[in-house]
Structures are given as structure tokens and as C-alpha cells.
């Protein structure tokens, strides 16, 4: 009998550990069971990506619609090429939309905001944004202002 109650307590202990791991997964890291969401890829070329990082968010009107997959340097144009994966249900981004790098808050991380255009055509998988706006660089802004340009 003593052996059995020990076994039950140890079993409860193990279940508590599993429950803690589940809590960390679902509540703390926000891992949702349907993580394999359908996405498609879009590209954008920037002159300066500033502090943009992979796994950063891509948003539209403040709503997150995708993530940044990778940031690479284009060897021919010396521009940064950002690969984004966009949720499949957002499939009607107008073709003349612009990708803008913005900062959340004063010191927050940088993300890509898509400002919506007015074209009737929409971007398809593998397309590149036609117009982009690079990260605001405070130092460059100040030096431009100081030199009066």
C-alpha cells in the first residue's frame, strides 16, 4: 500500500511537470497548436534596414500579417533584400503598396509596415514591393539638418 501511494504521488509530480511545460508553451511563449499556418513569400529591397531583424513582424494598419524570414545583401545593387512570409488569408495587398520600416515606440524594435496603395491588381507570391521606405536614421537626419540640405 505504501508503495502504491508513493507511485501515485510520483505520478502526480510528473503530471505537474508536464503541466508546467504546457503552461510555458501555451501561455508564456504563446505557441498556438496551428503553428503550421499557410503563408506566401514577398520581397522588398531597402537602402538601409537599420535594426530590422529576422523573426520581426510585418504589419498592416497595426495588425500583424506576417513575419520577416531573412535579410540578405544583394551583391549587384548593394541593397538589402528582405524576405517576408505573409499569412495566406491576406492575399489582396494592392500591387502599388509600399513597405515602410517603422519603430514601435521610441526605443522599441523595428518592423515593416505595409502602407496600402490603391491599385486593383494585388501582389502575388514571389513578388517584390515596388516602393519602399528605409529605416529612419536619427544621426543622418540630424546631419542633414545641420548641413542645411
Amino acid at each position, binding site marked *: 500500500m505504501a508503495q502504491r501511494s508513493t507511485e501515485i*504521488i*510520483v505520478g502526480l509530480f510528473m503530471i505537474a511537470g508536464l503541466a508546467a511545460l504546457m503552461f510555458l508553451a501555451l501561455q508564456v511563449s504563446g505557441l498556438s497548436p496551428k503553428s503550421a499556418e499557410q503563408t506566401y513569400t514577398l520581397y522588398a529591397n531597402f537602402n538601409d534596414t537599420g535594426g530590422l531583424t529576422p523573426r520581426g513582424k510585418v504589419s498592416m494598419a497595426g495588425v500583424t500579417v506576417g513575419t520577416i524570414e531573412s535579410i540578405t545583401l544583394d551583391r549587384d545593387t548593394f541593397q538589402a533584400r528582405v524576405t517576408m512570409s505573409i499569412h495566406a488569408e491576406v492575399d489582396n495587398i494592392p500591387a502599388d503598396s509600399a513597405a515602410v520600416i517603422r519603430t514601435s515606440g521610441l526605443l522599441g524594435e523595428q518592423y515593416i509596415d505595409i502602407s496600402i496603395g490603391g491599385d486593383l491588381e494585388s501582389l502575388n507570391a514571389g513578388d517584390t514591393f515596388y516602393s519602399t521606405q528605409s529605416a529612419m536614421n536619427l544621426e543622418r537626419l540630424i546631419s542633414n539638418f545641420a548641413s542645411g540640405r
Partner: protein
Amino acid sequence: MMDRIAGLGRLGLAIIASFGRSGQFLFGVLAGVPRPATGFPLLVKQLYAVGVLSLAIVVVSGLFIGMVLGLQGYTILSDYGSESAIGQMIALTLVRELGPVVTALLFAGRAGSALTAEIGLMKATEQLSSMEMMGVDPLRRVVAPRLWAGFLAMPVLAMIFSVVGIWGGMLVGVEWLGVFEGSFWGNMQSSVDFVDDVLNGFIKSVVFGFVCAWIAVYQGYDCVPTSAGISSATTKTVVYSSLAVLGLDFVLTAVMFGDF
């Protein structure tokens, strides 16, 4: 002069021999896998002694560490008007670092020392040699269940520690200091990644559990079979486990979170 050099050499040789013996010992324990029928009840008993009985100290310290993190984080972050980032600060600190490390230190003090003293006393009272006389392998019967129990219990304790700590931080931050609950959880969820943060913390706790349990059973098995020998072996267990955990933590952090 020559005597001192010889003494240094003897010390070095003794350290290397001790590493060798502990490696051989580990191989002996792992090779003697307990038979499921007889081994399982022994393992359950050790899991109770090592894991369940350590639960109280782990839960209480987790709660207080979480509460202190909440309080300190709030004081510093509110200077910058960003006290809603307190959730992400508490969760990242606990899941990546404090959960595995503090649990391992508590585990070495609470369970590791007990394992060493128990096995050391068995050796001093010649229970281990009488087992050998009866044809029972003490490595398989006594040491293996304790090693496995430490290895299995440590990650469970670390996960519970992190969860209780986050709850304690929420208690202070949200209930007491009035941080908005939605931004507390929202910031946490957007910054904590399951694979990068939670799983890496879990791997850390698995490594620490293995190292702590190995040091504890080896020190017990290798101790000088006198009362002074047992006491010094128990001290060594706590000291070596703590040093090994902190040193390995640096290495693992550099491998997991360092960008190079």
C-alpha cells in the same frame, strides 16, 4: 622545494585519477540498466525522495524570486515608462537562466547532499560490500536508480520553478503594482519563443540534472568510509555541483543564445 613540486604532481595525478574513476563509474552505472520489473519500484521510491520532497523548497523559492523580479523590474522599468515590459523581463529571466540554474543549486543542496550522505554511509557501514557478497550489484541496485531519479526529477522541478516564478511576478506586477494584465501577457508572448527560450531552458535543466546527480552519487560511492570522509564528500558534492552548474551555464548560454 622538490617536495613541493612532487606534492603538486601528486595533486594533479589525484585529480586526473578521480576524473577517470568517475567516468568508469558512470559507464558502470549506465551499462547496468536496471531490469524493468525490479528496477521500476526502486526508481519510483528515489523519484519520491529526490523529486517530490524537493518540491516545497523549489516552489517557495520560485515564488519569492518571481516576486522580487517583479518588484525590481517595476522600479527600474517605470523610470522609462515601460513597466508593461515587466512580463517579458520576468519570463525571459526565469525561463532562460534563473529557472534551470537556481533549481540546480537548490537541488544540489537539498537532494545531492542527501544522496552522497546516504551512499557514503552505506559504504562506511559495509552495506555495499555485503551486497556484493550476496551477488547483488550495488551499482545497479543502489546507484543507478538514484542517478536516473536525479536526471528525471531536475527538469520537472525546473519547469515548476519557472511557472511558479512567473505567477509570483504576476502577483506583484499585476495584482499589487497595477500593470495592465493584457500587456503583461501580450508582451511576454510576443517576446518568448518556444524553441529558442523554453526548450533551451529545458535542455539546460536536463544537463544540470545529469551533472548534479552524477557528482552526488560518485562522491558518495568514492568517499573515504569514515564519518569525516562522509562529511567532506557531502561538502564536495555541494561545492562541485554548484561550480559545475554555474560553469556549464556559461558554456550552454554561449552556445544557445550567443550570436557567433
